[in-house]
């Protein structure tokens, strides 16, 4: 019997052994190697030499690091407010049998189908200072003063890029909330109506609390997405003009692959990893909790 229980405990691991080996070689291994590299001065060609905490000391003195971090925080703030509120509003509006609801749902979700690189390219054309759709339209209605160099002005460029991200994210959040609304028990809504709730009161006191597990997932996903931000920046400005639209991932990419400072790039990615890990663990913890409830 003792032998059997041992086997019983081991059997899930026996099944997992192949994927675990693959995971270790391709995910855990490179991760640990990156942490090791962050303590070296590797340039991508010579053999790496350990230089202690020097990369991290340099990083915390580097103004570009703080610009990038601030930009990631801006991104995060926008992502946990605008798409969440907008997506929720759209979901509530379209979760009824109004004519054309399917069409609108599809249209709002459709940007999600495009890759970020394609979004970045299309929006670069829309933002074109001389011939772009946005500036041309503004000039057409006589608002010449508002026709700016969206991607060349260091005060606007970050917001212009975040706007593209938000545009794409709204539809995604909407779909998550629409799915969540399916799980809201209609009898509860009816009961609130019978008790004399106004529309707002129903939403605020009945529907929103029931959607709170979805909201947690949405917020955490938005935070993780904002830390991952890279594609749009890389395509639209490459972090320019002079780092004003740099985000951590882009900063890391330029240091490692353009300046050939692999060690320094590794240090940046370790910091980015730590930041992301906090939110990913929060997310996983929440997911496991909700799973246990059922």
């Amino acid at each position, binding site marked *: 019997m003792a032998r*059997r229980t041992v*086997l*019983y405990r081991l*059997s899930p691991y*026996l099944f997992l052994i192949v994927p675990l080996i693959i995971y270790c070689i391709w995910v855990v291994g490179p991760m640990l190697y990156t942490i090791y590299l962050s303590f070296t001065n590797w340039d*991508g*060609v*010579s053999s790496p030499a350990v230089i202690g905490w020097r990369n991290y000391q340099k990083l915390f003195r580097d*103004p570009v690091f703080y610009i990038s971090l601030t930009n990631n925080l801006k991104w995060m703030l926008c992502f946990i407010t605008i798409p969440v509120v907008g997506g929720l509003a759209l979901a509530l509006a379209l979760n009824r049998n109004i004519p054309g609801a399917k069409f609108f749902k599809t249209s709002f979700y459709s940007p999600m189908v495009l890759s970020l690189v394609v979004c970045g390219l299309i929006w670069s054309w829309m*933002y*074109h*200072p*001389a011939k772009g759709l946005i500036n041309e339209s503004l000039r057409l209605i006589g608002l010449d003063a508002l026709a700016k*160099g*969206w*991607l*060349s*002005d*260091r005060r606007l460029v970050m917001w212009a890029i975040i706007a593209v991200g938000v545009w794409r994210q709204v539809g995604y959040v909407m779909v998550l909330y629409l799915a969540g609304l399916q799980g809201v028990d209609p009898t509860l809504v009816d009961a609130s109506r019978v008790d004399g709730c106004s529309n707002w009161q129903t939403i605020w006191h009945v529907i929103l609390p029931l959607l709170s597990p979805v909201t947690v997932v949405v917020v955490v996903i938005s935070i993780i997405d904002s830390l991952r931000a890279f594609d749009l920046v890389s395509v639209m*400005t*490459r972090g*320019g*003009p*002079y*780092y004003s639209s740099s985000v951590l991932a882009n900063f890391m990419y*330029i240091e490692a*692959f*353009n*300046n*050939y*400072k692999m060690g320094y790039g590794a240090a940046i990615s370790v910091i980015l990893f730590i930041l992301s890990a906090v939110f990913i663990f929060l997310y996983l913890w929440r997911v496991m909790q909700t799973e246990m409830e059922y």
Partner: protein
Amino acid sequence: MKRYLLTLLSLVAILTVVVACAPQTVTVTVERTVPVRETVQVTVEKPVAKRIVIYNSYMSDPAPREADAALVKMFEEEHPDIDVIHSTIAHEDFKQAIRAYLTASTPPDVMTWFAGNRARFFIDKGLIMDISDVWEKEGWNESYPKGFRALSTVNDKQYFLPASWYWWAVYYRKDIFDQYGLKPPQTWDEFLQVCETLKKNGITPITIGTKYPWTAAGWFDYLNMRVNGPEFHINLMLGKERYDDPRVKKVFTDYWGVLIQKGYFLENAAAYSWSEALQFMIEGKAAMYLMGDFIRDSYPDELEGNLDFFRFPIIDPNVPIGEDAPTDGFFIAANSQHPEEAKLFLAFLGSVKAQQYFADTLGRLPTNMGVDTSKFTPVQLKGLELIKGADYVAQFYDRDTTPEMAEKGMAGFMEFWDNPGAIDDILARLEAARQEIFAGQ
């Protein structure tokens, strides 16, 4: 308990299947050994007959790409037994991928690259093959000018094949200049005058796209060489002069800053790549562009008659003249798996025939003195004169200094462009970067 039994049973079932499979496959292969042998004999012959050489190129702009492919075809016709596996990688991506190529166990055999410091870095690391034997055998020691030979030589051995070079100059629209009665300026004052006239008439005097900021680095190269001389410039590139030197500051405050403050450059330049900014010139909305001769590859052929160039205006006549003339070429990876084929291909690329073709189709200047210059276009001859009249030839900002210093420097130029008042801050930061970057060298 039931579950556990099921698990065990399924495990046993899977194991038996695996075990059962193994001998079966063996018997199958044993049974079929005879026919397999026959097919092997056939396939083995082919690779012996068809040799290969892997060639990665960064010539990704449309016109050079076409010429590059034509060269490969010419080589394959000359050597029907060799297949060239040719990949073209976008220029910016290539710069980033080359380290991975060079350190791979099976690298591409032949690659395009920049002559000078950028190649020297890899030569010092032992990643580029010594091709002195090719130089010797092909007679390049005699047929290539000494300057180009020196550019390819480290410790008396040749590692690089300089294949083509081009000049930088101020390109301008002849028709627009004619319209306003302007002549190509030779001095700084004349240049400012031209800018002023164009600006007054609603034409953007100078177009530039700084989304990728190397275009701005061209302005720094020329202004610094004209104001402080090429010797000071190249020492700054090598990390031997300080960025917070008052001479460097003068370039920004007295010259570059003046052009920016007077609004002579294209508006929102940072939103465009170099070729997007060229559109303004093609449409006649802008008149001048400081650019390398590859500008003509992207300029519509039917309008090229209106495009001409002049030497960057002289600022101080007492200062020797420096020009940017970047040299591109080829090398063989040190751990190339097909060194024989690679050397044959390289010998072809450096031959008079290949260089003649490249020079004739693209208008680049060849390095091999055997190339017949009688068929050169007036544009090529004018470019040749431009460089012959120079006292010193530099490669370019991001080729003459280290990649990291170039990246930081160009970001500094862009910051100055946006905020000229911060120049002291910017130069202090660049100086700190210089000390750190060149400390280990």
